[in-house]
């Protein structure tokens, strides 16, 4: 009985962790997102030369965030700061960041 129970728990954990890594883990993502708040966490913060607001990221679509960060990482988007940031992330980091950013509601913390 104990063996069966342990097997069930192990199997459940394995399934849970597999699905988390495939889809992105918002808890892991949150740890990485603190750096992003340097620019994206200041209401009205602007990029310099050219001068425009850095985008709002909270509540953005998950797959789009993965696409955008991957594009910076591969150099398909030119922004120097974002390229440098994205180059330091693994594909898994990107999935986790996207999972967290897309999960947060308008009132901030969920």
């Amino acid at each position, binding site marked *: 009985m104990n063996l069966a129970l342990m097997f069930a728990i192990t199997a459940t954990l394995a399934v849970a962790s597999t699905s988390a890594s495939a889809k992105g883990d918002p808890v892991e993502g949150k740890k990485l*997102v603190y750096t992003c708040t340097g620019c994206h966490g*200041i209401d009205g913060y602007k990029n310099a030369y050219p001068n425009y607001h850095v985008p709002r990221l909270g509540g953005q679509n998950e797959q789009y965030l993965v696409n955008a960060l991957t594009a910076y990482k591969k150099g398909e*988007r030119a922004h120097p700061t974002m390229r440098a940031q994205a180059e330091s992330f693994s594909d898994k980091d990107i999935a986790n960041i996207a999972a967290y*950013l897309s999960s947060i509601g308008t009132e901030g913390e969920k």
Partner: protein
Amino acid sequence: MSRLHSTKTFVMSTHLIAAALLLALAGNASAKGDAVAGAAKAKPCTACHGTDGNANQDQQYPRLAGQYADYIAQALQEYKNGERGNAIMKGMAAPLSHQDIDDIAAYFASQPGKLHDLSHMKK
């Protein structure tokens, strides 16, 4: 007494100048794009980004509703000039004039949406 008075006048006039500058800047920003004209020009965008710019149908496309207008305009310019490589968006942005881009950006920025900054994380 008169020195105090002139200091006060100076401080007040500095405030007035600052207020006038802010108003001029705000006027400039809103004068850039016309959201009403943008609504008509944004029709092709809605196939992927949704009629209201919320892109609820497909997670691969960004939500545009409530995004900063100048960021949307910047992104469109980058797709147009090749600083962002995306085959679909390059094709969409290519025929747009500066004014078209500003109008479309103003339209999506004016739509209610779920986007917000990350300032809650700093509290």
